[in-house]
């Protein structure tokens, strides 16, 4: 029992001490200025509800912790380097060469490259003095040697000067630009047209003007490089369909349509294809594409760079060739550089489509306008196409003659172009490739030898040189271009000359393919 009373006494002593201590603390606390306010605040905040006060206290503690935390970046890969580390890295760095070392194949290609001296034409003079039949220029109607056009161009040059020295929206537009826009629109049968200073930048500028990040583009796998750049710049979601496989196009469209319906999202949707394909030469099935675009509610961007001025009875392009109303196509892109022998590109469509581009298409707003003489030349050639249908007829005749010389009669190569296409694209037959086990590099080598052999025999043709078809960021090619040579027909040659050139090409192919190795 004694221990228990001792314990009580000790406890009493302790509590007295504690009370004293508390008393002192509270006295000291009351001496701090503002302590009365704090006490009053806590008392009135407490409101006889301890849980609530605990919640509030926790909030205050949380806020203080948040306020005291150190700032940091959430961006990945940010490393703080010391001065020495930076110096080390700078010392270690060796720049990559701006231009990669050329390969043996490229060296040979460069060495043998034909250089034309003087004006191009059906017969061109090379740097080594030899005159060759030129089947490598897009001089389909031989307008480069048309004196009337030259005269008009020179007259325009004297009146307007060389270039307008300003973008179309900034004092660059001249009356001749408005005339060619009206001419093309009337020629095609659309309500409006806008012209660009460069054919290549037309597609890569029109596509991003309409299609933005989040929008959807369905494109043919074989579309040309300019369109590819446009698709990339637009940042849109791109889905591909197999080249000229419209069942596959329908499959892609139906899938997209269903996806968007399920998610309830509505974006701009486009189909992008070429009229005459730059790298395969074949032609789109426009009525089918129009049918699908109407069925699934997509807009159609049709690149007629190689078909405008070529296909159709008067050269109006795929729309005339396949009897489709040009107004059915939302945007028709075209070039005035190839068949028209001028320069620049255009986009024809409805008023809204065209007006939108005047402020939103990068190449229109930021590039200097087309030189007046090119605009005038294009206007002139359009008139010639309409008033002289025989120049188209004679080109078709020449294509036919050349076709007969090459496609059915060659054991080795086949022409993938449409029969009306003046750019005849020749590739190795599938059975030749498989029976000889030709790799792409082998084929390129053989084609180069064929081109060289033709040049020795006085006919200038060229190999198609493509850039990788891979879209940016993808690791695999979505489409492999077949190695090919192209023969560009012109109506500046007589029947005899075409036949002779065709025979030369055919014999060159046979010679290279049958020689002993």
């Amino acid at each position, binding site marked *: 029992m004694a221990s228990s009373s001792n314990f009580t006494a000790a406890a009493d002593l302790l509590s007295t001490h504690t009370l004293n201590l508390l008393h002192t603390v509270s006295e000291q606390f009351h001496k701090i200025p503002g302590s009365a306010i704090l006490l009053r*605040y806590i008392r*009135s*905040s407490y*409101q006889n509800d301890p849980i*609530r006060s605990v*919640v*509030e206290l926790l*909030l*205050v503690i*949380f*806020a203080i912790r*948040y*306020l005291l*935390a*150190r*700032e*940091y*970046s*959430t*961006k*990945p890969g940010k490393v703080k380097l010391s001065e020495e580390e930076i110096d080390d890295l700078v010392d270690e760095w060796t720049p990559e060469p701006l231009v990669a070392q050329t390969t043996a194949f490229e060296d040979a290609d460069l060495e043998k490259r034909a250089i034309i001296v003087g004006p191009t034409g059906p017969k061109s003079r090379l740097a080594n003095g030899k005159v060759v039949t030129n089947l490598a220029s897009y001089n389909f109607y031989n307008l480069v040697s048309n004196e009337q056009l030259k005269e008009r161009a020179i007259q325009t040059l004297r009146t307007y000067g060389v270039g307008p020295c300003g973008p179309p929206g900034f004092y660059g537009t001249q009356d001749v630009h408005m005339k060619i826009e009206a001419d093309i629109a009337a020629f095609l049968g659309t309500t409006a047209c806008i012209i660009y200073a460069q054919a290549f930048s037309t597609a890569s500028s029109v596509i991003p003007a309409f299609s*933005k*990040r*989040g929008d959807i583009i369905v494109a043919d796998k074989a579309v040309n490089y300019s369109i590819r750049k446009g698709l*990339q710049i637009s*940042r849109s*979601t791109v889905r591909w369909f197999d080249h000229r496989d419209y069942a596959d196009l329908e499959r892609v469209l139906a899938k997209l349509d269903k996806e968007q319906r399920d*998610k309830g999202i509505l974006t701009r949707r486009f189909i992008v294809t070429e009229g005459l394909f730059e790298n395969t030469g074949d032609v789109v099935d426009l009525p089918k594409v129009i049918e699908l675009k109407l069925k699934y509610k997509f807009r159609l961007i049709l690149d007629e760079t190689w078909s405008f001025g070529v296909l159709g009875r008067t050269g109006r392009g795929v729309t005339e060739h396949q009897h489709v109303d040009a107004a059915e196509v939302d945007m028709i892109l075209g070039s005035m550089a190839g068949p028209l022998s001028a320069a620049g590109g255009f986009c024809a469509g409805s008023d809204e489509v065209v007006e939108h581009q005047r402020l939103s298409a990068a190449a229109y707003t930021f590039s200097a306008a087309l030189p007046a003489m090119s605009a005038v030349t294009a206007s002139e050639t359009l008139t010639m196409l309409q008033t002289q249908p025989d120049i188209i007829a004679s080109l078709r005749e020449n294509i036919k003659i050349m076709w007969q010389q090459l496609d059915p009669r060659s054991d080795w190569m086949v022409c993938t172009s449409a029969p009306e296409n003046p750019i005849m694209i020749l590739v190795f037959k599938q059975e030749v490739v498989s029976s000889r086990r030709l790799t792409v590099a082998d084929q390129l080598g053989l084609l180069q030898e064929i081109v060289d052999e033709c040049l020795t025999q006085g006919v200038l043709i060229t190999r198609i040189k493509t850039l990788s078809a891979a879209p*940016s*960021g993808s690791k695999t090619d979505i489409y492999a271009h077949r190695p090919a040579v192209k023969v560009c027909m012109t109506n500046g040659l007589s029947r005899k000359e075409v036949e002779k050139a065709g025979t030369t090409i055919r014999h060159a192919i046979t010679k290279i393919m049958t020689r002993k190795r």
Partner: protein
Amino acid sequence: MSSGKSGRRRRSSSIIYQEPPESVEQISDQAANPNLNSQWVNAKGAWTIHPVIILGLKILFDVMPGMTQEISWTLTNITYMTGSYLMFHWVRGVPFEFNAGAYDHLNMWEQIDNGDQYTPAKKFLLTVPIVLFLLSTHYTHYDLTYFIINFLALMAVVIPKLPFAHRMRFAPFSGAPPDD
């Protein structure tokens, strides 16, 4: 897009997913122009406007006839929290066209200060609702219902501001993720 390092990848089936890191194109588009949509939180007067708006709301609700302090503070709280939630956490992207939609996947809170955490602006914007809540509980005698309503409203704007919620998406609040 090459990643996998930073936590959860987005998958159509999951309820919680994280926005994947930006592609090269997105990064370069984001860097093309300053982000005018989020920059202003560091501008002059952008902090003062918060107390001014709150005071304005309080006065507006106080002058309504038959108003008690509990209802007035609760309405002030809820109005401010709703506005703040919509602006900072609900709406995504940028209302102007100057970087080709490179911010379309991020809400404004994630755009502020380029995604950095614990920056002065973020500290301020997180403190304001907390202080507002503490003030309102101090000056009123909330019953349990009022207290819970106000507290939940506070949580709705505090939780998405925390670093763990950065680029995190909860399917009920933000819909199914786009798959690509």
